[in-house]
């Protein structure tokens, strides 16, 4: 209980910090001039989350067997915001997502969801509060979209696993939200990549949780379908007030779709903040080993990376 109290107290503190945050955000460079950042700046770029935390991870150590993946990681996921975890391969971003969603128990540290330590929540209780879509999910053969989405109600269905009226409603609504009404009786195998990912997203939405966690939702999709899925996620965040935590591989996608970016490298958080506060050449060189320019997207005004060359070669 003491640890929980402590974390709760810190939550309050962050709430008090809100005014400072907004000032900070206002003073942050928001335009091409961000590229003028110095190397020393990137160490200090850790701004508080944009809102009070829906989910917070505190001092997380995680390992697979003897292989340590995460080392003392603190993460705040702002309520109602889209938070993107980015980082090079093997930086521990997927592992952090797994720890935050109770798929992996941390060796040390705690994750607090709505003021409760998730290690005390049952798997079922967890599924009512947070929906997760793992990377590259595979559906069993000969399963219709509706059957797939129905699985999202697993934690909520009534006695004897009866699907009740409100479950049917939730399923229909989830299918509608992703725009798959016309395909709801089709087999999942027969869908295109983008449609399939939308079906999986509907499954997570049918859980009707305030938080949605996605592990690289755009893997195996072409650029059009990638944008289709990310735009849908953004739309759901705005229209449904969903809190979204997602792991993304593509920095430009993260910058244009997330409110808040968290950069991991070698099992530690290097920087976190708004896309403009994160995306600058020294950090990209340090974390990803690339020489890059950051420009403002002429249409969205979001930061856009143009990577020129790798600096890791020959070292």
């Amino acid at each position: 209980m003491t640890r929980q109290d402590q974390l709760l107290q810190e939550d309050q503190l962050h709430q008090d910090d809100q005014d400072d945050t907004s000032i900070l955000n206002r003073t942050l460079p928001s335009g091409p001039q961000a590229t003028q950042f110095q190397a020393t700046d990137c160490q200090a770029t850790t701004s508080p989350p944009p809102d009070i935390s829906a989910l917070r991870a505190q001092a997380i150590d995680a390992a697979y067997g003897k292989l340590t993946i995460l080392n003392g990681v603190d993460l705040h996921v702002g309520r109602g915001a889209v938070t993107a975890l980015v980082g090079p391969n093997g930086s521990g971003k997927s592992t952090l997502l797994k720890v935050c969603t109770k798929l992996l128990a941390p060796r040390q540290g705690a994750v607090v969801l709505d003021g409760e330590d998730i290690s005390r929540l049952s798997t079922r209780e967890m599924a009512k509060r947070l929906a997760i879509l793992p990377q590259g999910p595979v559906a069993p053969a000969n399963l219709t979209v509706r059957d797939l989405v129905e699985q999202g109600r697993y934690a909520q269905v009534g006695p004897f696993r009866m699907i009740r009226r409100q479950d049917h409603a939730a399923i229909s609504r989830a299918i509608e939200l992703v725009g798959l009404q016309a395909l709801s009786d089709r087999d999942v195998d027969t869908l295109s990549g983008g449609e399939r990912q939308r079906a999986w997203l509907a499954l997570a939405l049918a859980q009707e949780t305030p938080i949605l966690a996605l592990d690289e939702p755009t893997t195996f999709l072409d650029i059009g379908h990638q944008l289709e899925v990310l735009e849908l996620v953004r739309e759901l965040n705005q229209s449904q007030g969903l809190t979204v935590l997602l792991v993304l591989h593509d920095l430009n996608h993260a910058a244009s779709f997330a409110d808040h970016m968290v950069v991991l490298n070698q099992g530690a958080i290097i920087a976190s903040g708004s896309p403009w506060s994160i995306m600058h050449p020294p950090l990209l060189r340090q974390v990803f080993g690339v020489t890059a320019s950051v420009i403002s997207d002429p249409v969205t005004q979001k930061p856009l990376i143009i990577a020129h060359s790798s600096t890791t070669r020959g070292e």
Partner: protein
Amino acid sequence: MSITTMPERMPETLTAIEMISKSERWRRWWLAMPLLLVLCLALVWFSTAIGVGSVTLTPPQVWRALVAPENATRHEIVASNARLARALMALGVGMALGTAGALLQALYRNPLADPGITGVTQGAVTAAVAWIVFGPVLTPTQVSWMLPAVSALGALLSATLTWSIARLGGRVEPVRLILIGVLVGGVLGAVTSVALLYAGEDTQALITWLSGSLASVTWQKLRLFGAGVLITLPLLLMAIPRANILQFGDDMASGLGQSVTPARAIVLVAACLLTAAAVCTVGGIGFVGLVAPHLLRWFVGSDLRRLVPGAALGGGALVLVADLVARNLRPADIGEWLNIPLNTNAITLPVGVYLALLGGPFFLFLLRRMRS
């Protein structure tokens, strides 16, 4: 802190939702149609199995023999009774194995998993044979209830062993599981062979039993089998939704609210108990657990709430047909037809032989399909 929920539904959409649940009910009925077809198929084969044999009986004759034996001839009574027991047993065993196969395929997320391939059947067979040969001498009553327990234990042990070895390298790959299953099955087969060397006068009976035979079915065996299945039923009802969610992978199942390890245990125990019940009554009948869920998946889909009943009925129908062939086709006839002298002492071949003849090619077909 309170949980933020998704925005409330607008009241005017309620009627739309009611309409959806109405059409949803129709959809469910529609999806259940193939199940009805399989049920009819099983019933047809069941009636045929009772009617066809050395003496052909019409349905009214069978009915008379069973309901009012005083009006029936002795032939009718004997044939009806024996065939009814045998048909019920075939149906029951097929249902148990079909269900076990559907559960295991979901558990291992592997379309090739079945009680035979994952070491479950071999474990049950080896434990039973070893216990009969090396175990203490017991009265028939003691044997009748201890044998199922022993083979159930053997099935569980061997399935756990197969799974553990397959998991040593981390993820359980489908092909890996099959290789390990073959390996464990091979070792257990060797143990069975050794046990058979010491079997003495029981050898002939054990060999027939090993390939799976319905020839020695009695009402007492049937009652015992029924009791075993009945005990497993609550566990089976728990296993179906769990296996259903495990099909989606560990992370997905966990994210949807099902703890993975207890769910796995329940599904595995249910499948092992069902297989053991079948094995101890009729021996090592193979491939039913592979073929039945596969064929039915094409018609009813992968959702286990439909696939389990489907695979059960399909498995039952399959064993009924195979036994019908086994009962009425003599090896000598086959020899005559193929023009080779097949002068065996056996009047008929055990049903397991025909199922293996059917199942082997089917397995190859599935392997080919999986590769593409």
